[in-house]
């Protein structure tokens, strides 16, 4: 079923409908951060800890597709090896298949499927490199951003917008030098963003996932965010679903208006006549809106 979601299979929507009443029970955690920060290692440790509480865990690990061949090497699983033998853990690797929104949609669908099939916790890992990857983790209840010393200073994390996304910040590889500095930088950044405002102040937690140290503190911080959401969780989730609907609407419009409308030739002609891309876009949009209106009024008459 996850494959259907990934391939945009025509029967996915009706299948989702059949299990929809079961969706919404799982706690969803999104994990992102720069390449090599230790996300997969941390996910593996978190999963181990959650399993000790006798919960089941679904893990979705998204890795980039090669822009050249479209293929992908999905290697997050290597760091999650010792979870493979555990029947309470379901791990699925997914390739990002280009930057188009389809990836984010497929990933959310996959989380819904794991949720419906009874996973208590669903963890999704993406590399924090682009909008589509952000969209995936942003669909989770709690976003955990993983940073580590040595991979640039905290300023980069702030610039990339990662911090705005973070509900919890984990400073991983605290066995390495520079961790304390990074931690205090991040604490300061969070403080600047939230001080005096009625906003969630993302806790900054130190850990060394590779050494199994501090991981329980990360889990505690995630749970405190979940507690903080408590009553507002349904609303929080609905807001995220609105984004999902908006995205699917965009895709459907693209499909049914743009792709079927065969505008390629028209636009080519317009561009040959020397008008700017904006002028061409304006004409196309106006034509589309006009024909949509006409369709509507003819439906009224029918």
């Amino acid at each position, binding site marked *: 079923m*996850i*494959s259907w979601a*990934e*391939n*945009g299979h025509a029967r996915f929507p009706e299948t989702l409908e059949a299990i929809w009443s079961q969706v919404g029970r799982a706690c969803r955690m999104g994990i992102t951060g720069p390449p090599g920060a230790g996300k997969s290692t941390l996910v593996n440790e978190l999963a181990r800890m959650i399993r000790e509480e006798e919960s089941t865990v679904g893990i979705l690990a998204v890795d980039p*597709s*090669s822009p*050249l*061949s*479209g*293929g*992908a*090497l*999905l*290697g997050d*699983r*290597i760091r999650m*090896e010792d979870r*493979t*033998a555990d029947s309470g853990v*379901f*791990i*699925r*690797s997914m*390739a990002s*298949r280009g930057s*188009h929104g*389809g990836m984010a949609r*497929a990933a959310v669908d996959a989380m819904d499927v794991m949720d419906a099939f009874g996973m208590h916790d669903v963890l999704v890992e993406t590399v924090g490199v682009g909008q589509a990857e952000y969209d995936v983790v942003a669909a989770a209840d709690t976003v955990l951003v993983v940073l580590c010393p040595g991979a640039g200073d905290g300023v980069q994390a702030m610039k990339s917008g990662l911090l705005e996304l973070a509900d919890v910040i984990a400073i991983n590889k605290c066995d390495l030098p520079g961790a304390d500095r990074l931690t205090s930088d991040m604490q300061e950044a969070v403080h600047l963003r939230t001080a005096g405002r009625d906003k969630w102040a993302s806790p900054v937690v130190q850990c060394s996932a590779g050494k199994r140290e501090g991981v329980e503190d990360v889990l505690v911080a995630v749970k405190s965010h979940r507690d903080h959401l408590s009553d507002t969780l349904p609303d929080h989730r609905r807001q995220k679903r609105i984004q999902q609907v908006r995205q699917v609407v965009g*895709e459907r419009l693209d*499909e049914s208006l743009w792709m079927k409308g065969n505008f390629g030739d028209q636009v080519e002609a317009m561009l040959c006549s020397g008008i700017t891309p904006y002028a061409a876009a304006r004409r196309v949009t106006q034509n589309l809106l006009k024909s949509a209106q006409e369709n509507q009024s003819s439906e009224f008459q029918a």
Partner: protein
Amino acid sequence: MSERRIRVLVAKPGLDGHDRGAKTVASVLRDHGMEVIYTGLHKTPAMIAEIALQEDVDVVGLSILSGAHMELFPRVRQELVDRGLDNVLMVGGGIIPGDDMQVLEKDGFAKLFGPGTNTDSIAEYIQTEISKRWAAEEAQA
């Protein structure tokens, strides 16, 4: 909307610790547009089949250099069948003597590749085999 891509699990069962070959094949397949899940060393047949199930792969590729191929290949096949994954294409590589190769290929094994095989031909073989299967699936549906 999005197209279907061939998903391949590249796995190393057994005890030998050399995965250069497996990694090379994995990246060649990636360069041919496939989505390759690489598992790391020392997997048991049951683990490999379990991963194949979770990842819903079309192909399982095994790399065995330890000489235990006559034991490991059939066990992986059995674990796959136990999980209802009869349809998964199996390919294998490693140092496998010609006689063994014949026996294994007969036992419901799609294809084995010895050392020095042109890696592109592995990719081409997989592509041809899988497109046949997908076409058959579609004809059924």
